Structures are given as C-alpha cells and as structure tokens.
C-alpha cells in the first residue's frame, strides 16, 4: 500500500499491545521486513511497548475510539493485562486478538492445568533453585516509607482476550504468518469490505491436511504412537500414518503447512477450523478412528503410548476449550 501524497485521507492509527506473551507476535510484525515501511506509511503507530516508549497514562488519555486498529497479542493472565485490554477496547475501533494466546490462550494457557496456589507453591517454595526461608510470596501491595508500591495481581486462570472484552477479529498463529498480517492490514487500510464481526481472518476455512502435500491414504491405521524423536521420518508419508501425532486434521490451514514442510508435525497453533469450537475433542475423534485395535485392552495399550493427551491436543487452546481448565 504505497502512500499517496495526493490522497488527503488521514493516516490510520495503529496500536500493538502484548498481554501474557513471549514477544514472538510483536516480532512477527517486524518480520514483514521492508513491508513494515508500507505499514508505517499508511498508519501511525500510537502505542507499541516493544518498540516505543509510551506510557499507559498516555493511552488512557486518548479519546475513545481514536485508535483505528489494535493488535492485541498474548493471553490475559493478570490485572494489568485485563486493565489494558479494557482500555484498548474503549480506545479502539477495531480490536484484533492477534496470535494463538489472545485467540485461544496459547502456551501460557497451559497454566490452566494447575492453579495459582500450586504455581506459587512450586515457584516460591518447592523448586530446586528456590532459597526462601522466610516463605516470602509476592504481594500486590507493599508499603514503604516513600508510599505504597503495587504490582499486578496474577489471576487463578489464564483467559483469552475474548473472555475479557469484546473482540472484533481473530488472527490465529504462534505467531501469525507475517504475510497474512499484511493481507489483513491491507484490507483495513484500503477500506475494503470487512468480514462479519467475530470472524477468524488471515487464515483458511479448511484444515491443514487439505493443503498438506504429504502422501495420504484413506485408511489410516495406527498400531502405536511415536514421539517425533522416536522414529525416522521418511519425509513424504503423512505423519499420522507413521504413528506420529500431527494436529493437522483438527487445525485450521493458513500457515502454509510450515511445520510439516519443515518435517515436523503440526502442533495446532492455528486453532480449530471453521465451525469447530474444541480442537482437542476433534483430534480425539479423528485419532479414535485410526487406532488399529478392537479389544479394550489392546486399545488401552496403544493409547498409553500417547504420553500426555490433554497437553498434546490442547497445547494452544486450553482456556478456550469446552472444559477450559482443570477441574478443582
């Protein structure tokens, strides 16, 4: 989108924020390489903590709906994430959950397999490298003689962005492919007609298998499951047919099947395909038909070769799944 000096249209205002994230989503924006210059030509970045020094109070002081597009990456893990999600929702015309964490909870969402108390116990008490004889645990407020210091409160659960504020669009991926971000950005910048609110954009409707070039047969049978390092991949047969769990059948296409092209099974970061809410359930459904055994004992033996089904099938999607967290 080259900037046109004769076009009086004001530049878009763009904000990028991270919640509970690793920073990879922000880097995926930088991975647009020289196209980033086109983005900056079409949009002013008003807020981007990884790259610019702007304080929260400056964002809070902006008029409502004054940011055209906010890409929010990362899950909502603490009161600071929640506060900024609410502020950015108020200030933005379009709020996008950018990346697997904001969309489904992502890797931080695996913390929903435990509780805040368990995590604190492990980190501040039990871990091999912890030296904490006074059993000090983080407090959200602490009075010193200069005044009161505060840090954000960590929640018991990890939330997706959509569980905290209303979200207009979802861009999946860990991180989203930079080319897909450019497509979405171009659509917004050129004023093209946008899909209905709540859509997943920058990805396909169908699954990764639909695009995958590996050789597939109709009758997949699995006698035992292998972890990727336990087997010599032949580089051309469907991973599932080799006994390696590949999340392809329950994962939305759009990444260009990058992991499988690089000879690594799909891990499911693009989330479920259209019309599916729970990718793990769909994966269990798909794998169930492939297990090559009829007696309960034999089936159990094969299933026991899947070491951690919950963690494997819900690697990126636990907080957005049907159960959402470990039941306590």
């Amino acid at each position, binding site marked *: 989108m080259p900037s046109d000096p004769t076009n009086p249209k004001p530049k878009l205002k763009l904000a990028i924020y991270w919640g509970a994230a690793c920073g990879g989503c922000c880097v995926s924006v930088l991975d647009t390489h020289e196209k980033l210059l086109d983005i900056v030509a079409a949009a002013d970045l008003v807020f981007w903590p990884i790259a610019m020094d702007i304080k929260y109070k400056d964002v809070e002081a902006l008029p409502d709906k004054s940011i055209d597009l906010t890409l929010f990456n990362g899950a*909502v893990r603490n009161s600071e994430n*929640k506060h900024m999600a*609410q502020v950015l929702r108020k200030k933005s015309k379009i709020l996008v959950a950018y990346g697997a964490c904001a969309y489904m909870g992502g890797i931080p969402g695996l913390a929903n*397999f435990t509780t805040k108390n368990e995590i604190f116990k492990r980190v501040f008490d039990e871990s091999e490298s912890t030296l904490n004889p006074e059993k000090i645990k983080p407090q959200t407020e602490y009075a010193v003689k200069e005044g009161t210091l505060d840090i954000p409160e960590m*929640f*018991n*659960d990890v*939330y997706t962005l959509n*569980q*905290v*504020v209303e979200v207009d669009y979802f861009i999946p991926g860990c991180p989203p492919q930079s080319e897909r971000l450019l497509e979405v950005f171009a659509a917004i910048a050129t004023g093209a007609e946008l899909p209905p609110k709540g859509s997943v954009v920058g990805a396909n409707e169908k699954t990764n298998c639909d695009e995958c070039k590996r050789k597939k047969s109709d009758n997949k049978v699995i006698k035992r499951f292998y972890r990727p390092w336990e087997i010599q991949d032949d580089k051309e047969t469907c991973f599932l047919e080799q006994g390696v769990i590949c999340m392809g059948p329950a994962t939305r296409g759009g990444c260009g099947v990058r992991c499988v092209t690089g000879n690594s099974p799909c891990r499911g970061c693009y989330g479920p395909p259209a019309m599916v*809410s*729970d990718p*793990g*359930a*769909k994966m*269990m*459904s798909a*794998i*169930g*038909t492939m*297990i090559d*055994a*009829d007696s*309960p004992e034999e*089936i*159990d033996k094969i*299933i026991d070769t*899947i070491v*951690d*089904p*919950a*963690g494997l*099938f819900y690697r990126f999607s636990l907080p957005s*799944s*049907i*159960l*959402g*967290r*470990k*039941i*306590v």
Partner: protein
Amino acid sequence: MNFRPTIVAFLCNWCAYTGADLAGTSRMRYAPNIRIIRVMCSGRIDPTFILTAFQQGADGVLVCGCHPGDCHYQTGNYKCLRRFKLIEKYIAQMGIEPERLKLEWISASEGKQFAELVNEMTKAILNAGPSKVKSTLEVKHLKS
C-alpha cells in the same frame, strides 16, 4: 442432602435406545435421573458431545451402543470404544472422576440390563456427589 444427579445418556438408535424402550414398554422401574439423547450410531458420538454435557452441568455421562460385532453400521461401536478410551484418559487428566463417564453395550433385548445399569450409575454418582465442572467454570468470568 438433597442431591439429585443428572445423567446424560447417548444411546444408539438400533440397540441401546431400543433396549431402553423395552425397559419402558415392559414397565420396569428405574432411576429417573437419566436424560436420553438418541443418536443413529454410537460412532456418531463426538467427544465434543460428552465434554459439552459435563460443561453444562451433567453429573455423569453414559454412552451405550450395540455389542461388539453387532453394530448396525458394522464398525461404529468400535470407533466409539476407541474414542471413549481416549476421552477417558483426557477427563482423568482434567480432574473429572472416572465414575462419571461410563460406556456399556446394550442390545435391543436388554431392557432389564439397561434399567439395572441406570440404577447402578445413579447410585455411584450419588456417592460421588455433584460434579465440580460447572462450579469450577462459573468462577471463571471476567467480562464486565
């Protein structure tokens, strides 16, 4: 304590549902805690159904199909069994007690067995108490 468990049962059309029907037409008495959903084949029961039942407050989920070898569609009940074994392992990891999910084969002539099965499961869940799924998930709301 006045706990009345709710058990959601997915029954296949050809054997299990007909078996339950036989229990009814034979006027057998059994626990009224069951909510039956008829599906064409136990192979149709997606793990999503079972998880959604728990999420919406079921204290137990019962899955019934034709006996092995008797499936109207030849292999649907084997697919059901394999999925069931997977989901059994998954719900154990998620902290749902194993007695809340049960798979049994019921033929069209086994009305009595069906009635006994429902009674047994109801009793087991009465002992286990209410499911904690709904109460755990209710705490989770952040949208203001």
